[in-house]
């Protein structure tokens, strides 16, 4: 592999993997022809345009979605954002107040499992096979429904709606854009759980 081809492929990393698998050879071929002989890098114009084009693909900007797919994507994003709060609540509690709130370690583990399962559904909803995602969402909703403490009934029931929404959306056939939107859930969960974990505990009286 020549130096210029290596540099072209290095620049192509800005594109998502699925796109590179499909088009990298073809784009490299065009870049090499455009660069001409005795060059070790593509032109700055080509490099700039490649980076911008790659970012556009990653952002899903070049994908024209059907109206149904747009609605599905918007609903999924809303459900994920809502779930991130509950997932963060569980993970934040487990991380920041381990052993203080829970009367037994079983509850702490349950919250940890719930938080992680919810997070997995939030990420899987963007990629996973429909039936598996739907089954995982329903299983997680059942876990949420099993809340051992009566005073947490609201907290137990509220996540079931967005999880049900994800289960229904997962079974629909509209194809989503391949984009970085899946990162929204984990990012929101991380920031919210960190802030909850680091917040001072309420007065115990």
């Amino acid at each position: 592999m020549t130096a210029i081809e290596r540099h072209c492929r290095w620049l192509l990393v800005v594109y998502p993997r699925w796109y590179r698998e499909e088009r990298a050879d073809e784009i490299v071929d065009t870049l090499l022809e455009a660069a001409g002989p005795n060059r070790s890098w593509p032109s700055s114009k080509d490099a700039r345009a490649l980076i911008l084009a790659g970012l556009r693909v990653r952002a899903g900007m070049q994908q024209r979605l059907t109206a149904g797919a747009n609605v599905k994507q918007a609903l999924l994003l809303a459900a994920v954002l809502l779930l991130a709060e509950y997932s963060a609540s569980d993970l934040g509690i487990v991380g920041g107040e381990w052993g203080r709130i829970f009367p037994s370690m079983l509850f702490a583990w349950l919250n940890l499992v719930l938080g992680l399962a919810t997070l997995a559904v939030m990420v899987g909803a963007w990629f996973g096979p429909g039936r598996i995602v739907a089954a995982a969402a329903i299983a997680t909703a059942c876990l949420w429904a099993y809340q051992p403490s009566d005073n947490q009934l609201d907290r137990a029931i509220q996540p079931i709606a967005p999880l049900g929404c994800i289960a229904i959306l997962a079974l629909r056939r509209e194809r989503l854009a391949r984009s970085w939107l899946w990162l929204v859930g984990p990012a929101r969960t991380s920031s919210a759980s960190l802030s909850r974990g680091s917040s001072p505990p309420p007065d115990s009286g």
Partner: protein
Amino acid sequence: MGEMREPTYFVLAALLDGPLHGYAIIQRAAEISDNRVRLATGTLYTALDRLTAEGFVRLVSEEVINGRARRSYGLTDSGAAALTAEAARMEQAAAVVTGRLRHQDAAVSRGRGRECPA
């Protein structure tokens, strides 16, 4: 499709004479635009992805050159129709200006004719 951007117009126009591969499209677009439109590779593939999704361009052939895939793209009927419609729109827009300028030139010439007695 609304108004076509210039690079898109020249990508489609480059394919009027038959299917071309990526770099040949860049060269042809530069040639027919008197080197005004010099497409960057990233811009070309963004345009090709969009035009393929819109059904204006289609993948015609794929061959392996120097161990790398080389794909050729061709204009579809709807791509040719969109290009023709855009050309007609631009022609009409140009006619508004060129017609007015011709009218003014003629008026100026008539005025000069009156000022200069035989």
